[in-house]
């Protein structure tokens, strides 16, 4: 079921480290509009990379939306995250075309190389590994996406090499 995919929020530092004043503009834009819940959450995630607990509370107080409704929606859709993510999100496509062309090998190679499981973030906060349903680049299967960059026709070794290159450029 859908909720099983998302872990509960980890214990955060009190009030988080996020600057919630960034939300004011967003709340201003959507306050009182019907159907505003999802755009609000999407906007929040755009700002912070995830939805901090404090942001839920602030939005609920200032817009009158129900906290339970917001949490319900956030846990329903695959897009929303309740925990901070790495600087780079590695999205490995597991659509049908990628699956029959061995997308599992790519996820496994990355898991081994970064020592994280699907959905986890590396300790240095650099990478988050995510399996996604379909990126729509089936002709290039198997595919992964890092940031806005899509990499196609991969093998496990090639995927790891791309990630290592990002690590090297980050360390310089």
């Amino acid at each position, binding site marked *: *079921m*859908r*909720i*099983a*995919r998302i872990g509960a929020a980890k214990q955060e530092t009190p009030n988080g480290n996020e600057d919630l004043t960034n939300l004011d503009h967003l709340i201003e834009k959507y306050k009182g509009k*019907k*159907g*505003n*819940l*999802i*755009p609000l*959450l*999407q906007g929040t995630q755009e700002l912070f990379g995830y939805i901090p607990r404090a942001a839920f509370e602030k939005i609920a107080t200032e817009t009158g939306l129900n906290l339970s*409704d917001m949490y*319900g*929606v956030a846990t*329903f*859709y*695959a*897009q*929303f995250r309740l925990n901070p993510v790495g600087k780079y999100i590695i999205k490995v496509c*597991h*659509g*049908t*075309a*990628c*699956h*029959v*062309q061995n997308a599992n*090998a790519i996820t496994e190679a990355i898991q081994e190389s970064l020592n994280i499981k699907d959905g986890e973030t590396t300790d240095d906060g650099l990478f988050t590994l995510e399996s*996604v*349903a*379909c*990126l*729509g*680049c*089936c*002709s*290039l*299967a198997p*595919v992964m996406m890092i940031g*806005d960059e*899509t*990499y*196609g026709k991969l093998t*496990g070794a090639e995927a790891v090499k791309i990630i290592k290159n990002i690590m090297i450029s980050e360390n310089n």
Partner: protein
Amino acid sequence: METKVIVGLGSCGIAAGAKKVYDKIAALREAEKLTFELKKTSCVGMCYREPLVEVIDESGSYLYGDITEDKAVEIIDKHINQNNPVKDYVVYTYLYDTPEKLYVTSQNKIVLRNCGYIDPESIEEYEAKSGYRALKKIAGSGMSRLDVIQTVLESGIRGRGGGGFPTGLKWKFANNNKASEKYIICNADEGDPGAFMDRSVLEGDPHSVLEGMIIGAYAIEATAGVIYCRAEYPLAIKRLNIAIRQARDKGYLGENILGIQGFSFDIYIKEGAGAFVCGEETALIASVEGQRGMPRKRPPFPAASGLWRKPTNINNVETFANIPWIIQHGGKEYAKFGTEKSKGTKVFALAGKVKHSGLVEVPMGMTIRDIIFKLGGGIKNDKRFKAVQMGGPSGGCIPEYLADTPIDYDSVNATGAIMGSGGMVVMDETTCMIDVAKFFLDFTQKESCGKCTFCRIGTKRMLEILTRITEGKGHEDDIGRLEDLSYQIKDSSLCGLGQTAPNPVLTTIRYFRDEYEAHISHKKCPAKVCKPLLTYEVDAEKCTGCTVCAKNCPSNCITGTRKEVHFIKQEACIKCGMCFTKCKFDAILVS
């Protein structure tokens, strides 16, 4: 005329490196002060040849494929500067025979009429290709709402999102329900893994979808339109936003559109947040309203009570993209394509183990074999064609011996699969059908919204059974158990997701029962996919004693000294396949 150089910048092209090629050509043009016109377009459908660059000069048009930055430099140098096309890289031109001639000439493009030919960010280019002329025809000739609906009915077009419900009829129902506010929604939540035609249309020709929606809005008297688009398609959203802005500026959206008194309509985009079930109409509406995307009982159908409880009409991207063509050329002209009950053309996304993966648009009624072998070029590495998966998680696998089935809604349904949105994932002898069924059940089980017990728990139980079969722990009566569960889930689920979720399992049992039996009774995976059922052995003739397998074996079950044949201790082997992947000499045998 000025020579034009056009680079295909769809998502797939960009992923294949088209942006770099474009930048390279732009830099070269700047540096050498060349005079050709450099333009962008989107996907022409020939994804397997991306990046694609088209050069149009006085002699004609040349489509170059598999272009790298170096090849682009060569083309500019030889073709543009010396007027000498680089024949080796040309994949299609109408001037002489080329490798991709069959791929291009076997298609009938209606939906994809402009994809790959125009700059999707330019409304002028769309207008130059008869764009918005259907809308102008309605405004100019005084076509009434009922005339429009009648034309769509005559065309015989059925919903291209998968349902196959006649579009004209849907519009008629929505038109019959009178209200001060009505909505028209474009379903662009293309969630089927393996389908990417909607993305291509939105990226390549967004105005055709807008025009289709505006015509639909006129027909049903809608006051506002929503495009519900997957957030995973950022380029499509960007181009739609540009198109909507342009259409507003030109008066195709807004008040009293094209002088039609009282016809005011505007469109906005709603980004989906990632839930397959939102492809279902009522779940989609819930999502637009900002709730969890859970389906509700029908009736009332959206045509009577949809978004914000107002009459609402929902069509798929591809359906809308057909509409301007139908209005312009007439319903009867459209109905000339296709079969008796399935009219028109259909776009298919070919992917998987097929040589030419990409988009093809063909008249309904073409056989599966023609699509895969004529257009698709056959199976990769010339392996044996085993099955084709149609309809995504709601569809099924059609085996090789039914490959002469004509593709129309009813013939495909008769096989147990569905037309769906037109994804065709081709599978060869190295694909395990139980693994495929497990893959889809894993997908539907995760995507089930949880409302109906049978869908929520039943899919989970089915997944557990399939998992144990692929692990060699299947029980003798598991096939019957899967069938029982399948029928119960189909009968007891509210929406399409649950009603169709067992299809991949039912069709694979129907056509590949022997494979299930091999897994369950003989503990063998004929396609050599299910790792726990495989045995790894060292080929004594090929082994060079390089020790790589032994070093990489996580369970230390490989013994042997350098330069001598190695040995795998079967009782300790965890069947991870690491030795097979790492061996450079093909010396690991799998059986």
